[in-house]
């Protein structure tokens, strides 16, 4: 640590430049990780919602609903169908409005429509199923979320591809800038390196301080970028709370491990921080290793 501080004092501009470029790269990496994870978990959440919900007229005979359900099942395009009768609908309504007794008093099970929650095997079957349901005389309303789902799928896919391209650019830019900065540092320590060589210092002995500095610089840059992201995240938390109103939680299934993303979860943040730190350490050591290999 003492050597690290002395090295910063000896080459303050180069060390600051190293820190800033690493901070920039890691801040953006962390931002991308959080954004992608968030959008993926949002997508997973929407995918678990019924893709088509069809509401029947309140007095529709259950047998007619079952007939439609069976016809849909027989089409081979359905993954699952869930029937919600009036009583169940009323239970759901009560649960949703438990804090509002006035609303509960005004509604009874009789006036709530029975419904079918339908999940298709493939999104392309959804318009066809919706059309079929709309033609049924007992159907009152068909809620079809394909547009939202498609838009989110597109958005997530674009975000993923853009992030990947941006990430590759960021990686290359950081490596090249760090190599150039390390080259400067080596040039500034040319006389010291010459003396060390004449005294019989091994290559690894001369290289070690550069690698040590790169390691600590990456640690400081990742801690700084994580702190700034935390501040931003908590600053915007009220906005996110209102934006995601109605969504109790968002999570992502990674290798059969369910990771909670929203509400803000420290496990998720810690994992993001560790990934960013490892990336920072790797990129910093890799660049310094290349530079010392070439210029020492």
């Amino acid at each position, binding site marked *: 640590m003492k050597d690290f501080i002395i090295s910063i004092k*000896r080459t303050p501009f180069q060390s600051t430049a190293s820190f800033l470029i690493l901070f920039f790269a890691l801040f953006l990496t962390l931002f991308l990780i959080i954004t992608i994870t968030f959008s993926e978990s949002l997508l997973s959440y929407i995918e678990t919602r019924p893709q088509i919900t069809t509401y029947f007229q309140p007095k529709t005979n259950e047998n007619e609903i079952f007939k439609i359900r069976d016809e849909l099942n027989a089409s081979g395009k359905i993954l699952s169908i869930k029937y919600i009768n009036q009583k169940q609908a009323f239970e759901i309504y009560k649960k949703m409005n438990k804090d509002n007794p006035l609303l509960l008093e005004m509604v009874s099970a009789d006036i709530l429509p029975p419904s079918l929650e339908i999940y298709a095997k493939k999104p392309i079957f959804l318009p066809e199923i919706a059309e079929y349901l709309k033609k049924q005389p007992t159907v009152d309303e068909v809620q079809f979320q394909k547009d939202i789902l498609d838009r989110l799928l597109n958005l997530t896919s674009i975000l993923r591809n853009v992030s990947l391209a941006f990430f590759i650019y960021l990686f290359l830019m950081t490596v090249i800038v760090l190599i150039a900065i390390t080259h400067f540092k080596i040039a500034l320590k040319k006389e010291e390196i010459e*003396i060390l060589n004449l005294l*019989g210092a*091994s290559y690894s002995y001369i290289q070690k301080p550069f690698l040590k500095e790169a390691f600590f610089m990456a640690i400081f840059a990742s801690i700084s970028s994580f702190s700034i992201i935390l501040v931003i995240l908590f600053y915007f938390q009220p906005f996110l709370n209102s934006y995601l109103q109605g969504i109790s939680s968002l999570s992502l299934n990674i290798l059969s491990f369910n990771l909670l993303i929203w509400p803000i979860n420290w496990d998720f943040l810690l994992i993001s921080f560790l990934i960013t730190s490892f990336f920072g350490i790797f990129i910093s050591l890799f660049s310094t290793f290349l530079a010392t290999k070439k210029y020492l």
Partner: protein
Amino acid sequence: MIVFENVTKKFPLGNVALDNISFSIEDKEFVFFVGPSGAGKTTIIKLILKEIEANSGSILVDDFDITDKNFSKTLILRRNLGIIFQDFKIIYEKNVFENIALSLLVLEKYSYAQIKEKVREALEIVGLIKKEKVFPIQLSSGELQRVAIARAIAGERKIILADEPTGNLDPKTTWQIMKIFKKIEKEKTIIFTTHNVDIVNSLQKRVIVLKDGKIIKDIKKGKYEF
């Protein structure tokens, strides 16, 4: 022991720095290399340090044939050599202690306590024990050269290569430096290049005189008149 046998060194532009020279230096021998500028004194030092390669001939340093094409022990070779230059080659961002400790740290075998002890021993010899925490910028030329000598003698470096170490010093400081060399001469092999006749003549050591890359005299013990 250092043995040069028919060593020739030519630089790329064709100038001959050493022309088929041979000599041998025993362990713990003190040898002055004298001669005008361009005679080849510094080339000998650089060849021993393996900073440059000879074009022909062989050089033995402590049983290592350093002219062998397969020689790969430059690190071990240099760890046995203490070097002192006219321009001191001191690191100005490190204090006196750290500059000397560098000579031991590069060996990667001593603990901090051992380094501290050995640095202090070297500082005692050169008379800078009270200045171990001082930075080079606060030292005089003579003191800087003493730091360089302490760095060269710290640890177990058997051969001291002093390339005109008194070239930048006034007469009084020169004699103070020579007293230090007198102190260490029984422990180390010393190769000392100089222009200073007074030093050579007063110490009465072996003198090898070079001119145009050739040895023109090898006086075992005695005075030399330029």
